[in-house]
């Protein structure tokens, strides 16, 4: 599922809100999350998970092709920690044949 697929599905479930508005809101959700992380803020979505920016120390790396040593400077990286509820949902989902391969099938059965 892509962001547009997500917008489509949300719109389907909220027929009283126009698709255009849905699109604006979905985009604003991720924009505001990005801005929050940029401020160094932690994001916690109950039942889903939390996002946090952590500092990665500078280190000496290597160009895997040439073997040449390269300096990798310190940087900030976002981390996601899955929430308990979602973690269990993912692990216990009954789908034995992983649907993850069927990339083309964007059609989730709607309620």
């Amino acid at each position: 599922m892509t962001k547009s697929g997500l917008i489509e599905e949300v719109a389907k479930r909220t027929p009283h809100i126009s698709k255009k508005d849905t699109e604006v809101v979905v985009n604003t959700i991720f924009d505001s999350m990005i801005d929050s992380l940029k401020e160094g803020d932690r994001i916690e979505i109950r039942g889903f998970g939390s996002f946090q920016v952590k500092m990665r120390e500078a280190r000496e790396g290597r160009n895997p092709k040439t073997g040449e040593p390269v300096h990798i400077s310190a940087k900030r990286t976002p981390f996601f920690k899955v929430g308990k509820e979602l973690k269990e949902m993912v692990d216990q989902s009954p789908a034995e044949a992983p649907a993850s391969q069927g990339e083309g099938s964007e059609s989730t059965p709607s309620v």
Partner: protein
Amino acid sequence: MTKAEIVEQIYERVGFSKKEAAELVEKVFDIMKETLADGEKVKISGFGNFVVREKNARKGRNPQTGQEILLEARRVLTFKPSLVLKNILNDEVEDEGAGDDAAANAPTIPEESA
């Protein structure tokens, strides 16, 4: 930041009613959860990809006691942040315009911290 603060941001930025904003925020995370529970990945351009991975059963060890334990096969959720997001978080540190353009140059809206 919590869901309530996201709702607040939607209200401030696009003037959407809080009631409807809350409803949409709720739906967005519900749908993402359902999709991931089905084993399908969720790709949010400019943000990152959520991918369900199959982990094989393996032998592990209780790090405290050293006792061997069997870790069963399981499915876990991983998040791979987009290059755009990683660059945004580091734009003061290294200012390279590589990567995506759209989101990276998003106008910074003045915001009062809620």
